[in-house]
């Protein structure tokens, strides 16, 4: 039974099934209370968690999103059942941490990770198109580095306890969400009472969906960055079938639930500055491909014992704190009294995106083994 399931999830239909399942569950989470076109967004949800524990004080994006612990723990459960839990670590952790920081800064220049870009497209938000273009450009850059010998070195098998740190941290976050302790007057845990952070599906729904997706994604190796990378690198259409399954299923689910609204300006929790939507995702795509996985995949890997992916995830959470504390994150378009104010990046945000691209290029050029 276990072997047959493994074979199914490794097949073309298996990955399409997983993509479609995520594509349906995202809009369902939105219907259940999550922000618009943000049924699931790994980067945004990690940003909300960073806000909840006080790493930033942007009071509209603070909530301990249970989907994220769900993703990690769902993956842990799958890895344990299928005997794939394996503690490993030691492949350039500091590089992965900083890549995580810049991956988040890039994602927050667009206001979403590749998952949300796909959900925004499926919800009719056309600002996702320059972002997806940017993602493809960034990943193409990453593939060029991979072809010319870039790699982060080998990881080592290590003590099982190392692999358990991330799942246990996630259980800790869930406990903080359930018991909501007050650590000091006016202090954490912070919960937004307005804005996207105040919009959320019921805890058990979010956690349940997170666990299901974590389980399915661990079995199928679903990865949005890998999907694009494999097409460019070796004309392999396996993972991208899953991503296309996600987009089609999300589009159909949005149509059924009445959540599809086509437009370019003033879209929900989005801005319409095409240049920085593109460049933000160039940075994110480059960082994900140099680190070997999209934000979702890094969570699933951290759940099955990969300490290096865990470091990338922590880098993203810290990056969210930096992005909001230093005014690097984009502002959404705002419509007030029928007047549209186009959002976008502060000059600091623009500088940070450029700095991030330069950092990624330096990493790509300097961490190379000679190709024979």
């Amino acid at each position: 039974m276990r072997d047959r399931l493994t074979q199914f999830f490794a097949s073309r239909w298996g990955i399409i099934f997983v993509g479609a399942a995520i594509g349906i569950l995202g809009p369902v989470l939105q219907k259940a209370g999550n922000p618009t076109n943000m049924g699931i967004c790994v980067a945004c949800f990690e940003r909300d968690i960073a806000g909840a524990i006080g790493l930033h004080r942007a009071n509209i994006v603070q909530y301990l999103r249970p989907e994220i612990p769900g993703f990690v723990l769902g993956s842990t459960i799958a890895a344990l059942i299928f005997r794939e839990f394996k503690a490993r670590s030691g492949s350039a952790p500091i590089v992965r941490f900083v890549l995580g920081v810049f991956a988040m800064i890039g994602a927050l220049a667009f206001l979403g990770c590749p998952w949300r870009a796909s959900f925004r497209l499926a919800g009719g938000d056309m600002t996702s198109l320059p972002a997806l273009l940017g993602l493809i450009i960034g990943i193409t850059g990453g593939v060029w580095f991979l072809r010319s010998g870039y790699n982060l070195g080998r990881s080592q098998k290590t003590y099982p306890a190392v692999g358990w740190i991330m799942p246990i941290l996630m259980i800790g976050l869930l406990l903080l969400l359930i018991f909501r302790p007050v650590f000091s007057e006016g202090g954490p845990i912070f919960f937004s009472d307005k804005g996207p952070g105040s919009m959320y599906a019921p805890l058990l729904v979010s956690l349940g969906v997170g666990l299901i997706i974590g389980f399915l994604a661990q079995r199928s190796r679903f990865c949005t960055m890998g999907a694009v990378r494999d097409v460019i690198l070796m004309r392999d259409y396996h993972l991208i079938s899953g991503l296309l399954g996600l987009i089609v299923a999300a589009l159909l689910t949005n149509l059924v639930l009445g959540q599809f609204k086509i437009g370019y300006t003033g879209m929900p929790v989005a801005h319409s500055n095409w240049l920085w939507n593109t460049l933000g995702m160039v940075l994110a795509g480059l960082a994900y491909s140099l680190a070997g996985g999209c934000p979702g995949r890094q969570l699933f890997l951290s759940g099955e014992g990969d300490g290096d992916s865990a470091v990338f995830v922590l880098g993203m959470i810290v990056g969210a704190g930096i992005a909001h504390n230093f005014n690097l994150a984009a502002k959404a378009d705002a419509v007030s009294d029928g007047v549209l104010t186009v959002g976008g990046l502060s000059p600091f945000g623009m500088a940070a995106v450029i700095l991030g691209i330069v950092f990624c290029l330096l990493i790509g050029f300097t961490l190379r083994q000679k190709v024979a």
Partner: protein
Amino acid sequence: MSAIFVDARGLSCPQPVILAHKAISEGVFPVEVTVDTVTSRENVRRMAEKNGCKVEISQQDDEFTLVIKK
């Protein structure tokens, strides 16, 4: 005896596939690839089969050896 050995243990995706692909491209068979995750095993197998090769897999503890033949 295998003509080419590829040690892809500890390397993260997609390095094992890149190394295995490079070895296959040299046209000397069999190619023997050692990996230590199921993900890498499946990715290398898929790539080899797509390139018209036959793959035999054996497992020792938590490592997998793929013998790739044309």
